[in-house]
């Protein structure tokens, strides 16, 4: 039996009913870049696609490994596939009308501006601390007009309540507990990583809706 998916019109009407027309329109016209498609990035992407954000730019150089599946939004039969291709496929299954641009490259000081040029808001979702700092310094210095939502500290089994969102400067927000390093905590647990990803995704949506942290 063929199962039909909703039309684009039906899709956006349903989203408008949930979010309100004005907010939904602003979600639809936003472009968000997600740098790193692991535990943070893949979960951020799911939340933003479900919310009806118009365009996602997905960037990651890696392919899916069996050790990713416990916290990242991929499937067992996607091991070995590039994260950009697999995430695009998975997102379009749940949100068929989101526009997705993918770049299967490692973000560096040399290519960051070209990759992120079209984004209104940038999510830093790497796992490596030096990469996180690099991207934050590049974006705040060279692309000061863009909003940046980064994350630091979501490893281990600490309390869910220690994950927070803070506005560090006018356009730079930081989510996480600030201290739980995976090399010390020794673990990354789906629920706690998803909490941090949810903080980032929610911060993105609040920025789009012009509701800023004080």
């Amino acid at each position: 039996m063929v199962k039909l998916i909703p039309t684009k019109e039906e899709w956006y009407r349903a989203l408008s009913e949930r979010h309100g027309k004005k907010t939904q329109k602003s979600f639809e016209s936003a472009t968000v870049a997600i740098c790193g498609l692991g535990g943070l990035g893949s979960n951020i992407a799911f939340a933003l696609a479900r919310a009806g954000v118009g365009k996602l730019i997905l960037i990651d150089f890696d392919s899916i490994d069996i050790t990713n599946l416990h916290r990242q939004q991929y499937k067992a039969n996607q091991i070995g596939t590039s994260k950009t291709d697999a995430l695009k496929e998975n997102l379009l299954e749940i949100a068929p009308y989101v526009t997705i641009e993918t770049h299967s490259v490692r973000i560096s000081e040399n290519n960051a501006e070209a990759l992120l040029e079209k984004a209104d808001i940038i999510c830093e979702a790497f796992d490596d601390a030096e990469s996180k700092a690099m991207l934050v310094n590049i974006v705040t210095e060279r692309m000061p007009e863009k909003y940046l939502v980064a994350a630091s500290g979501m490893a281990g089994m600490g309390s869910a309540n220690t994950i927070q969102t803070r506005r560090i400067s006018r356009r730079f927000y930081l989510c996480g507990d600030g201290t739980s390093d995976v090399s010390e905590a020794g673990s990354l647990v789906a629920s706690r990583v998803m909490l941090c990803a949810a903080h980032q995704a929610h911060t993105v949506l609040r920025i789009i809706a012009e509701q800023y942290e004080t």
Partner: protein
Amino acid sequence: MVKINGKELNVAGKTIAEYLATTNYDPKRIAVERNGDIVFKSEYDEILLQDGDSIEVVSFVGGG
């Protein structure tokens, strides 16, 4: 006095680089916010800390 990550420190007159050299921060893992703006890395050894400055050193940890 200069407020750094919530603590009042007697470091006015030092550059940001000079202050960081007295700490355990890994320079490759940080971003520095000064009075509401992120400081360019190229300016760490130029900007002098002044009395009344409010600084936050954001030190990133791994995991994601």
